[in-house]
């Protein structure tokens, strides 16, 4: 028994060694017969490592990022793939955990031999994973909203072309909030990088409008009970600005309702506080008349574009933003379009760079850095965007919706220029 095992091991080693030799020889063009095989390999799939929050506090986002990614990959493959090669999505759960995130990146690069990595949302996972992607020289396309890409905190291999960042979102909200709701703002936000972006950039932006933030209430990301934070909201608050993430979001908003009753200040929330949650849930009636930022309006509405119609159907979302197969399964509509758009940008980038394999990774990044406009189209259903290759960040329209009859009705759309800010980094000057 032991002997046969030994022999098997030896045989496998011999074969592996031989294969390696053959590979080298084929690469050097010494074996014409095998060269043909190598050419046939270019029709092998382009492997995209998809880092997904399947478990942990980001699971609801992960589920919908997954569906959107599959739908986009199917569309790309149905239309002939990338450079004639099919796209293969290799999904790995990161548990919404930064340490696990970095391990997943490592797995994409070494075990799965992916061409690029893509997909992450939660900012702490992005910040935990990006350095590893940089070390492994693996292009890493995040769909995170965090300002950490454009702030210069990350590296040349990390890009965010498919979704706008918090800094541009909040600065474009501030004028409307100051003009329509009030100037004395209390902010409630999660106590990690994403929440800190909100705190810092909204505070700056509202001050430019002559307003100010009179209280900043940070909530630990794993908190499950929120009532105890609410008495810290000052009495003279005109606008309560809230943004919350994680499994406790519904509890948070419900407790806000219990706390204020009918006597509430103006409420301006980021839809993150209610992503994947039905606005018509019991206990949320008090939100009637309040406002939300939406990256992409959840309800189809009257002015639905043909591209939105196509995108909704492809991903399997109904006119209320819920799954076509289960009306109680609410999507993360304001964020997940980023996966769809990022994959299309990846396709355009790979085709522009004539991408053949990992040796063309730098050319791919340079090709995307050279892009500047993504017009509204099937590939960009959320709307037109500008891309800043120096900061690796996209800029786009933002929406404000009002809760009316238990639905979100868009009332304001910003211009792209409202969201623009000066460069804080030039990644193109960094070496690969």
């Amino acid at each position, binding site marked *: 028994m032991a002997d046969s095992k030994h022999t098997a091991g030896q045989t496998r080693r011999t074969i592996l060694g031989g294969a390696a030799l053959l590979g080298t020889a084929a690469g050097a063009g010494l074996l014409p017969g095998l060269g043909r095989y190598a050419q046939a390999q270019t029709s092998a799939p382009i492997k995209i490592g998809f880092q997904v929050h399947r478990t942990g506090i980001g699971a609801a986002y992960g589920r919908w990022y997954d569906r959107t990614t599959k739908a986009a990959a199917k569309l790309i493959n149905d239309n002939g793939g990338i450079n004639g090669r099919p796209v293969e999505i290799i999904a790995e759960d990161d548990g919404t955990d930064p340490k696990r995130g970095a391990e997943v990146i490592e797995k994409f690069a070494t075990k799965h031999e992916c061409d690029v990595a893509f997909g992450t949302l939660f900012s702490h996972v992005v910040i935990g994973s990006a350095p590893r992607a940089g070390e492994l020289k693996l292009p890493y396309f995040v769909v995170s909203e965090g300002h950490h890409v454009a702030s210069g905190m990350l590296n040349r291999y990390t890009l965010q072309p498919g979704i706008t960042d918090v800094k541009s979102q909040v600065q474009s909200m501030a004028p409307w909030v100051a003009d329509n709701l009030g100037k004395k703002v209390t902010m409630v936000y999660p106590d990690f990088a994403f929440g800190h972006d909100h705190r810092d950039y909204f505070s700056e932006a509202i001050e430019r409008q002559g307003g100010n933030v009179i209280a900043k209430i940070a909530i630990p990301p794993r908190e499950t*009970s929120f009532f*105890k934070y609410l*008495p810290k909201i000052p009495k003279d608050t005109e606008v309560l600005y809230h943004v919350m993430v994680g499994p406790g979001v519904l509890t948070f908003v419900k407790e806000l309702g219990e706390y204020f009753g009918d006597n509430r200040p103006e409420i301006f929330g980021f839809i993150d506080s209610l992503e994947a949650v039905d606005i018509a849930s019991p206990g949320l009636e008090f939100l009637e008349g309040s406002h939300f930022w939406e990256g992409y309006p959840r309800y189809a509405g009257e002015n639905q574009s043909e591209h939105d119609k196509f995108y909704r159907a492809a991903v399997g979302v109904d006119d209320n933003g819920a799954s076509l197969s289960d009306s109680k399964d609410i999507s993360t509509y304001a964020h997940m379009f980023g996966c769809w758009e990022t994959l299309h940008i990846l396709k355009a980038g790979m085709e522009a760079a004539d991408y053949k394999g990992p040796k063309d990774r730098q050319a791919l990044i340079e090709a995307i850095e050279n892009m500047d406009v993504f017009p509204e189209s099937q590939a960009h259903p959320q709307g037109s965007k500008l891309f800043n290759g120096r900061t690796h960040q996209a800029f786009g329209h933002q929406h404000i919706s009002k809760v009316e009859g238990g639905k979100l009705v868009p009332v304001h759309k910003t211009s792209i220029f409202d969201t623009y800010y000066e460069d804080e980094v030039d990644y193109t000057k960094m070496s690969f």
Partner: protein
Amino acid sequence: MDLIALLPFDLPHPALLAAGMLEGTVLAAVLALTALGLSIVFGIMRVVNVAHGEFYMLGAVLAWFVTHTVSGTVGGPPWLGFAIALIVAPLIVAAMAALTDWLVLKRLDYDPEATIVATIGVLYIIQQLALTFYGPDARPVEAPFDFRVQLPWFGYSGYKLVVVGAAIALMLVVWLVLTRTKIGLVMRATQYDRETAQAFGIPVDKVYAGVFALGAALAAIGAVLIVPIQQAHYLMGGDPLLLSFIVVILGGLGSLKGTLVAAIFIGLSDGIISTLYEPTLAKILATLLVAMVLVFRPQGLFGARAA
């Protein structure tokens, strides 16, 4: 008025204090139930059940399944599903705990160290089972009734106040069972001296299985009560486990009175410190207190010194 002005610190605003006390009371009530389960199991079986928080989580998850099924099939009102969940979920959790006792703990002969490691394993098994069959989402359970109590400064959930009442009533029942019934007598006899109890014909194995089931059921009841306030999520067992351990160590492992007093103390101080200062500070102080108690009074505030 002048006297207050002379104080070297600002008095907290009454709204903050009221919110802290209310939240603290709700936490104390649920914590008392959950920690009582942990305490009974340790007191009688000398087993430190690290999987206790997962039985709590299981209670919440089962409550979601039951209420979801009732509203989905029968279409009954929220209170009906909730009432059924309040009975069914703890029973299923109790059955699972009894199974764990028979399958794992009994085979380890209730060795204190081995059972700690084994229940860590049980913790992960239950958590992963919940992840597999229930999924990673936080799902809401509708409260059986909902009314809002308006206080001078803010409103408060009426359901939360009812939870406090229900928890007190349940603890009274547990206390009556332990002190006034034959079952309680048998349990106490087993706690006092396992071998003598066996010699007197008490089926110690069955008592152990029953105690372990009761401990888990108490955690599950606490979870069913809390799930309309929070939401059922597969990772929700961590906090109750930590807080239950804090309470049980402070009160003295196995002392029911100590558990109760410590739960009220920890609940209220957590609520008040979190509201007036920082939630993290509340956790730091509670954990520091545990460390101090372990150093200076290892048997806990009410525990008897080990012989």
